[in-house]
């Protein structure tokens, strides 16, 4: 809402005209400009940008490591690099991408920036804690980077015992310490979100008026709180095991390595939903905005978010079917894993129903969102193969698994991240990016991604195991195809980094609401003032109040 106090409906506003700035206080980006004002800020919007800059750096590191892996696999005999280098490359890729990019990616950046705006609050409940969480994150990152600089780690991102405790001769300890520390930053972020969403909503902003983005972040935050401490304990035991030979995970002393896997996956399976749920929130914002249509089945999507966050705690054993757990456990975990498909499908059906008979605009964010839906469906359905006990015996720890989770993590989370980045870029920076370049790179990423990872489904089904530096020569064609796809994907990633940065200085000034979208974050200026709203925002009658509203059940927005 502009400082002049004029209240215009969205329909009357010319969407592409920047608002008058005379007499308005400087926005959060220009309020102060010293380094100190950035590194000691308690403004959730600035902290979000600190996170955005850091995770972009980690994304580049992780992507480079992936490039090394794909390079090594161009030839079947492992001639390009030593096996040790290969092991370290895929470990760095996994550790950095999972813990330093995917987990904080959407929550710590978009969540941090948008949750207070979306609920009409001035800031998160604990601004200093928010800043602390970024410093904790960077401290953990420092430890992990030190382990990489000293010579790397070769255990894979899962740190399975006893490889990580008794056999690996690499820098496992600093990496473990780094990952342990980073967990605390997740916990602090999740705690802040839970408290903020419960207590800081503007008057009239009831739970069923919240955007789905806020719902999914609430669900994610609960997982942060309930799952992260368990992996902290598992990693503490692993550190003690490696440093002092505690023995609880070491079969040499009668310990049980499977116990580590239980504790590890009690966190790391829900962590999949830490990575996926926020992306679902992003898609739930983009799809209605570009279909000009109210989100179909709002309540079901909201409940499905909480449903996913709960069900995900009952299925971790499906990572361990052939690792020696009891048949009873495998049976129970397998059966429950199928339940995950229900809330996931609820979401996908509701997005497609929103698109159906909408008035579509295929701008960059929507291209990413459409890509997301397709790839998430493929990734999700292959998950059902893996949850099936008998098929799992065949494809466990093969490239089928690698392809499956990359369809979820990259096809899902990274596409949602990029879609959200383009969607809210005008709000974050006050600038418009180049739309043609945006579309070109969205399409490049979609194509490059599929060329990279679809062959891996076939490779895995034919029996190529993951994490091996060599493979039989008959797999070379598909591996070369996969590596070629990775170069397309890389080009698709490089373009946004260039044109988005370019837009910071040379982009067109963004209006408050360039997409004519609904939601309180579009009611304030772009970029927003330091305390988010000049005057208290008016909470809309219903969420997603777009022109096209399919008639659903009457009481959907009681």
């Amino acid at each position: 809402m502009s400082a002049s106090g004029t209240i215009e409906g969205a329909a009357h506003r010319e969407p592409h005209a920047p608002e008058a700035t005379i007499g308005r206080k400087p926005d959060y980006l220009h309020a102060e400009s010293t380094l100190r004002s950035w590194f000691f800020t308690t403004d959730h919007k600035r902290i979000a940008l600190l996170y955005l800059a850091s995770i972009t750096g980690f994304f580049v590191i992780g992507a480079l490591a992936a490039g090394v892996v794909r390079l090594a696999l161009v030839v079947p005999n492992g001639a390009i690099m030593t096996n040790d280098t290969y092991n370290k490359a895929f470990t760095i890729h996994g550790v950095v991408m999972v813990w330093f990019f995917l987990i904080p990616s959407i929550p710590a950046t978009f969540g941090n920036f948008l949750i207070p705006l979306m609920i009409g609050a001035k800031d998160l409940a604990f601004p200093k804690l928010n800043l602390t969480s970024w410093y904790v994150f960077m401290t953990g990152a420092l430890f992990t980077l030190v382990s990489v600089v000293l010579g790397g780690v070769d255990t894979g991102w899962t740190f399975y015992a006893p490889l990580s405790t008794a056999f690996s001769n690499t820098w496992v300890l600093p990496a473990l310490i780094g990952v342990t520390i980073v967990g605390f930053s997740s916990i602090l972020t999740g705690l802040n979100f839970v408290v903020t969403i419960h207590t800081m909503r503007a008057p009239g902003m009831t739970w069923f008026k919240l955007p789905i983005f806020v719902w999914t972040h609430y669900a994610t935050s609960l997982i942060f709180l309930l799952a992260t401490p368990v992996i902290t304990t598992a990693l503490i035991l692993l550190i003690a095991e490696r440093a002092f030979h505690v023995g609880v995970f070491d079969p040499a002393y009668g310990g049980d390595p499977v116990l580590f896997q239980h504790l590890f996956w009690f966190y790391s399976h829900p962590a999949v939903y830490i990575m996926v749920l926020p992306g679902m929130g992003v898609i739930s914002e983009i799809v209605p905005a570009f279909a000009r249509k109210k989100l179909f089945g709002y309540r079901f999507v909201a409940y499905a978010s909480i449903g996913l966050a709960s069900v995900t705690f009952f299925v971790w054993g499906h990572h361990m079917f052939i690792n020696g757990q009891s048949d009873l456990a495998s049976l129970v975990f397998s059966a429950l894993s199928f339940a995950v498909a229900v809330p996931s499908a609820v979401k996908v059906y509701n997005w497609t129903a929103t698109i159906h008979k909408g008035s579509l605009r295929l701008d960059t964010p929507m291209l990413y969102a459409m890509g997301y839906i397709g790839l998430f469906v493929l990734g999700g359905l292959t998950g059902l193969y893996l949850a099936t006990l008998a098929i799992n015996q065949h494809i466990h720890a093969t490239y089928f698994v690698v392809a499956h989770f990359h369809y979820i993590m990259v096809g899902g989370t990274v596409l949602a991240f990029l879609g959200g980045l383009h969607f809210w870029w005008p709000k974050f920076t006050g600038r418009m990016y180049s739309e043609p370049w945006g579309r070109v790179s969205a399409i490049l990423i979609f194509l490059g991604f599929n060329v990279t990872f679809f062959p891996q489904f076939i490779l895995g089904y034919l029996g190529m195991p993951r994490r091996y530096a060599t493979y039989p020569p008959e797999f070379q064609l598909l591996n070369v195809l996969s590596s070629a796809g990775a170069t397309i994907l890389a080009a698709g990633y490089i373009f946004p980094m260039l044109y988005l940065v370019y837009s910071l200085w040379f982009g067109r000034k963004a209006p408050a609401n360039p997409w004519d979208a609904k939601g309180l974050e579009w009611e304030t200026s772009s970029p927003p003032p330091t305390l988010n709203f000049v005057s208290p925002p008016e909470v809309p009658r219903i969420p997603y109040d777009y022109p096209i509203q399919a008639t659903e059940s009457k009481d959907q927005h009681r």
Partner: protein
Amino acid sequence: MRTPLSTLTPADRAQLKQRMRKPVLTFLALLALLAVNVTLGATLPFAHVWAIELGVVALMAATILLVSMEVIEEPPLIRLFSGLGFFWVCIMVGMTLTDYLGR
């Protein structure tokens, strides 16, 4: 200057007594329950005494949560959060035991 006790007015004494009643009673209850557990642990009177010991521990934990930490007086949201963690511990233990009790 509120201490020592001799300088307190009768009104202050009454307030002190009323305010300290609950913490002191809680304290005594916790000590009594601990005494039961220590006795059982030291004497091991019969097999499977651990079941009773765990029951006593549950009582102690409930006392601290409900009375010392005043969960009983809190709004429903806080009550929900105080129970949420325990519920999740049950999920963790229960699902892990499907493995260890099924081997």
